């Protein structure tokens, strides 16, 4: 019970920090749409081409939004000592990492997920692809959140080699993304491919609390 409450209140805090109200979520969504606009303006309004690369656009924007917010991942809470205070109040580092990862998913990726159906209309993506897009997208974005958590916790340490490490982790996301983008166009073998993606998710999700937790601990020690 106490445990559950802690989790709930953690998200209350994250919510307060991330959103000052509904307008922030809406701004996220607008950002998404404006980015789509920009793509279309620069690529040209040709219907065929647009529906052709529509999935690519959506994925790029997902990637953008998650890298865009990586700096906030732990940095703020680390610098103002909140990570420490939470740890002292019974959140183990690994647990914080899990909660933070999900919070990143919730507050950054989900708004995008919700706007995908409309984006599909704008981008002329066939309706029957929507499900595939959704499935691969949600799993893929969780993977990105986990990798982002590891990379940005590494970033907290002030040693050079860790800085490189965080970049390396980012590079790991390349195959994942390419894989997920590919999935959508292979409807026959979709399920088995999705399983593989899911497997990757399980692996990073299992590594994440351990790796991020360790990095958090080490960086607090050196601070």
């Amino acid at each position, binding site marked *: 019970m*106490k445990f559950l*409450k*802690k989790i709930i*209140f*953690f998200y*209350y*805090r994250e919510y*307060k*920090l991330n959103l000052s109200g509904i307008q922030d979520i809406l701004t996220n969504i607008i950002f998404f749409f404006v980015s789509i606009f920009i793509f279309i303006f620069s690529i040209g309004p040709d219907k065929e081409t647009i529906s052709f690369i529509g999935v690519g656009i959506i994925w790029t924007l997902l990637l953008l939004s998650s890298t865009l917010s990586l700096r906030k991942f732990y940095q703020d809470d680390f610098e*103002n*000592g*909140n990570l*420490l*205070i*939470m*740890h*002292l*109040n*019974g959140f183990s580092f690994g647990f914080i990492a899990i909660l933070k990862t999900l919070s990143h998913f919730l507050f950054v990726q989900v708004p995008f997920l919700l706007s995908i159906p409309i984006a599909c209309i704008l981008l002329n993506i066939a309706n029957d692809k929507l499900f595939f897009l959704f499935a691969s997208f949600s799993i893929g974005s969780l993977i990105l959140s986990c990798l982002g958590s590891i990379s940005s916790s590494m970033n907290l340490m002030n040693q050079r080699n860790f800085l490189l490490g965080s970049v390396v982790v980012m590079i790991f996301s390349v195959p994942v993304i390419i894989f997920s983008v590919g999935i959508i166009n292979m409807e026959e073998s979709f399920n088995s491919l999705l399983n593989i993606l899911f497997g990757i998710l399980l692996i990073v999700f299992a590594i994440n609390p351990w790796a991020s937790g360790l990095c958090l601990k080490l960086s*607090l*020690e050196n601070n």
Partner: protein
Amino acid sequence: MIIVKDLTVERLDKKIFENINLSLASGNITILKGKNGSGKTTFLKTILNLIVPSFGSIYWKGKLLRTNLYDFYNNVTYIADKTTSLTKLNVKDNINIWKKIFLSNINDSQIEVALKTLKLENYLNQKVTTLSLGETKKLELLRLIIENKKIWVLDEPLSGLDDDSIELIKQTFEDHCAKEGSIIFSSHQNPGIYVTEEIHL
């Protein structure tokens, strides 16, 4: 409750302090003194198991601290030397978040009283960035009341405060000790707070 034996801490292969002993019973106040860079903050962080000492050991309720960590954390409030309130939010939001995330058993009227004695009651809707230095510090110290734990570990709690507030803190300390709490704090000046032990680093 806390016993520190022969604590030695090194950082970047530089010895910060050596062979420090301490025993903090309930009802005690310990002050930590020392020059800038003598390792007061380091000592407090070591007690909180945030820094691994190179030598010596720390006991909590007779057991090694490391084996008994979360029970210890359930009993300790740490006020760092910098402020941890969320500067983008206003005072009320900060208090609310603290109350919730620390699962505080303090009710609202008690917090209101504390706010009033700290003279913060008019700033509830002001963002923390726009508070004055001392006001931010007082807001930080409010955590002592909200968390309501037995052991207080405070890093320079008095810096930036005016005389009235220091007097208030002094009283709060005395009340806390009377209620079997214990306090360890670092400070450069001691304006008449009665302490049971003084440690020089």
